[in-house]
């Protein structure tokens, strides 16, 4: 049974920033950042988005900067 489960195919996640070769994550790029803030406006965790640690850090920083300027929300109510 355990073997049968293993066969289940999961798509391999790839870091979007590595794939698209985006090295400078701009806090002004709302469209890009919005892909990483789901419904509740929380920052999408790495384990879900597949972003690598090297890019998650500047992404997190960019999202926080954008929030400060009210470009993207902190929460949705």
């Amino acid at each position, binding site marked *: 049974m355990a073997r*049968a489960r293993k066969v289940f195919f999961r798509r391999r996640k790839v870091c979007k920033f590595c794939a698209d070769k985006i*090295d400078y994550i701009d806090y002004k790029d709302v469209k890009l950042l919005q892909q990483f803030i789901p419904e509740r406006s929380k920052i999408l965790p790495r384990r879900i988005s597949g972003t690598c640690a090297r890019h998650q850090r500047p992404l997190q920083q960019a999202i926080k900067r954008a929030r400060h300027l009210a470009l993207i929300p902190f929460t949705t109510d």
Partner: protein
Amino acid sequence: MRTYELMFVVDPRVADEDVVTMTNDYKNMITTAGSQITSEENWGRRKLAFPIEKLNEGKYVLLYVSSETGTTALPAVEHRMRQNDKILRYLTVRTDEDLKRAARKHPVTPGTASQSGAGEERDADAGSDIESEEGEA
């Protein structure tokens, strides 16, 4: 050389002309201190993601500053913005280090084309693996 971005959000009830005079004020402070304004963007009226001081919109202005010496009037400008209650938000970011790092990582060279080709090969291999797994099942 250091480069900075200075973005601020102005109360939407302030007239466009007054926003311009305000920005000119700040620009003068920066240039008299020996830095340059490399470019400027006026985003105009934009909806805020959440209300600030019960306002739902704001006027966004963005200044790009570069300084040869590394000393700028930016702390003084920030101080002025803090005291001005027509400024809802401001943010200064130093950008030269991050931009330089980004440029070093992916310099525009013709060699990058061959790298992407290698990546495609790896993808093809992964595809065949899946097929064999399905065969086992």
